C-alpha cells in the first residue's frame, strides 16, 4: 500500500520485499525499521548496516567558477580542498543562519559533488540556481540512488567486493566504477561508524543493494536507527538541532569554519559568525545526559538547577549503546560547561540532567595517518 502523494526511491520494492515498515519522511516513502530499531542500531554498532538514503539531494556544481561560487555561501575552504577529498559544510544565509548542512567534495576533476538533506533539497537547489553566477552550473542528480554501508565490519564487507575501497581514508571520495557501474563514493556517513556512502545510478541500485546484502555481516537498517545512531554520534539533524536561525557557533559546528575563510570573511553571514566567535554566542548546542525518568524529546524545556527555564531540547531519546537517556539542546554559554547540573522538564516533571561531551559514543572513523 503506497501513499500516492509520497515519492519513492529506486529501492522501494526492495524495502517492501524485506518486510520494512514504511513511513512518510521528507516527502518520501521510506523504511523506518525492518526487524526493530534497537536490534538494527546494535547491529550497526557491531557489524555492518545498509541504509537507503536516496531521498537525500545529490548534485554537481561545475564550471570554471564552481568552487569560488560555491564558497560564497559556505564557510569552508574548498579552494584548498584536494581532489579526492570531501568536507562537511554549512549553507548559510546572510544572517549567518544555517539553511542546510551538507557534504561537498572533489571526487573527480569536474567541480563539486554535493549531498544535501532531503527536506531541504528543493530549496537548496533553487537557492543555488538563483545565486550561482559566472561559469558555475548546478546539475541535480535525481537519477541516482544513495546507499550507505556503516559499521565496524563495513570496510571488510565492501573491500571484498571492491578492493580499491581499502585505500580510502575518512572523508576521501572518488568517482569510479564499482559493481560495474559509474559511482561516486566516499568514506563517510552519519552514524559515527566507519563506512561508505555510494551514489549509484538508479537502475543499478537494487542490484547493488542486494549484492551488498548477501554478506551475512550486513543487515538493512531503517531511518529509526539512523536517527538514534546519529544522536549518539552527536551529529546534528537539520530542521531540529540546527536551522536557519542558528549560527554555526551556536550549533557547536566551529570545526566547519576554515581559518582562511574566517580571515577573508567573504561568505554570506560572515559578520554574524565572526561576531559570535568574538563575543560568544547567545546560546550553544550541548549534549545532555538525562539521569532519571523518561527520555527528554525535542521540545522539552531545559532548566537550571534552580528550575529557571534556560533552553530547549532539540533531539533526544534513549541511547541503545549506553543504556541511558541522552539529548542535545541549546543553553546559554554560562550553563554549557561540561558537568553543569541542569534539569529537563518532561510532561511537567523535572528530571536531573548533566552537560556531557559529544559525541556520546566515540566515533570510529578510519583516519589515515597524514
Amino acid at each position, binding site marked *: 500500500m503506497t501513499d500516492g502523494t509520497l515519492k519513492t526511491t529506486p529501492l522501494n520494492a526492495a524495502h517492501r520485499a524485506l518486510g520494512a515498515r514504511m513511513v512518510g519522511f521528507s516527502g518520501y516513502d521510506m523504511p523506518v525499521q525492518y526487524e526493530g*530499531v534497537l536490534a538494527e542500531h546494535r547491529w550497526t554498532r557491531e557489524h555492518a548496516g545498509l541504509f537507503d538514503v536516496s531521498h537525500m539531494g545529490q548534485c554537481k556544481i561545475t564550471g570554471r567558477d564552481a568552487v569560488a561560487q560555491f564558497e560564497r555561501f559556505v564557510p569552508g575552504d574548498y579552494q584548498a580542498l584536494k581532489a579526492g577529498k570531501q568536507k562537511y559544510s554549512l549553507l548559510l544565509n546572510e544572517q549567518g543562519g544555517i539553511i542546510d548542512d551538507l557534504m561537498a567534495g572533489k571526487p573527480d576533476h569536474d567541480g563539486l559533488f554535493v549531498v544535501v538533506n532531503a527536506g531541504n533539497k528543493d530549496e537548496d537547489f533553487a537557492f543555488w540556481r538563483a545565486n550561482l553566477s559566472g561559469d558555475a552550473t548546478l546539475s541535480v542528480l535525481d537519477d541516482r540512488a544513495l546507499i550507505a554501508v556503516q559499521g565496524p565490519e563495513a570496510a571488510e564487507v565492501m573491500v571484498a567486493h571492491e578492493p580499491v575501497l581499502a585505500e580510502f581514508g575518512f572523508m576521501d571520495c572518488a568517482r569510479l566504477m564499482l559493481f560495474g557501474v559509474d559511482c561516486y563514493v566516499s568514506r563517510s556517513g552519519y552514524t559515527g561508524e566507519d563506512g561508505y556512502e555510494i551514489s549509484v545510478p538508479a537502475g543499478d541500485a537494487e542490484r547493488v543493494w542486494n549484492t551488498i546484502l548477501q554478506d551475512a555481516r550486513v543487515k538493512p537498517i531503517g531511518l529509526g536507527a539512523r536517527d538514534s545512531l546519529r544522536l549518539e554520534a552527536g551529529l546534528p539533524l537539520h530542521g531540529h538541532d540546527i536551522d536557519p536561525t542558528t549560527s554555526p557557533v551556536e550549533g557547536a559546528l566551529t570545526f566547519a569554519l576554515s581559518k582562511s575563510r574566517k580571515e577573508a570573511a567573504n561568505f554570506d553571514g560572515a559578520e554574524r559568525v565572526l561576531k559570535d566567535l568574538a563575543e560568544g554566542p547567545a546560546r550553544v548546542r550541548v549534549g545532555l545526559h538525562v539521569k532519571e525518568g*523518561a527520555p527528554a524529546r525535542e521540545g522539552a524545556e531545559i532548566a537550571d538547577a534552580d528550575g529557571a527555564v534556560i533552553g530547549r531540547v532539540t533531539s533526544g531519546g534513549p541511547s541503545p549503546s549506553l543504556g541511558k537517556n541522552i539529548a542535545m539542546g541549546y543553553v546559554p554559554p554560562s550553563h554549557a560547561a561540561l558537568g553543569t547540573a541542569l534539569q529537563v522538564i518532561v510532561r511537567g516533571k523535572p528530571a536531573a540532567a548533566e552537560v556531557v561531551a559529544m559525541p556520546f559514543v566515540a566515533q570510529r572513523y578510519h583516519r589515515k595517518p597524514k
Partner: protein
Amino acid sequence: MHFTKDHEWVRLDGDVATVGITKHAADQLGDVVFVETPEAGRAVSQKDGFAVVESVKAASDVYAPVSGEVIEGNAALASAPETVNADPEGEGWFARIKVSDASQLDGLMDRAAYDQFLTTL
C-alpha cells in the same frame, strides 16, 4: 476482554479492571523503552490519557478504557519496559482500576470485533 479503537484492552474481574495496550499497539510501537504508569489513588476518566509508553522514536499517550480510581500501576514496567512487547496482554499490563461504571464496557469491542476492526486499518 474488551478493546478500544485506541488499542487498549481491559479485563474486568469483579469491579477491578486490568488495562494495557494490545499486541497490535505494541507491535506498531516497536521496542518499548520507557513506560509511565499512573499512581495509586488517581481518578481517571474514560478516554483520558493516563499513562505514557515510549519507543526509541517517540512518546505515545495511553487512554483509560474505563473510568475509575487507579489501584496500582505496574511497577515492574519501570525496570523492564520491554515486557510490553513480550507480553502486552499479560505481564505487560499498565494499571488496575477500580471501575466506577461497569456499563462503559458495553461500549467497547470484544475480541472478534477488535480483530475485525484491525482489518479495516
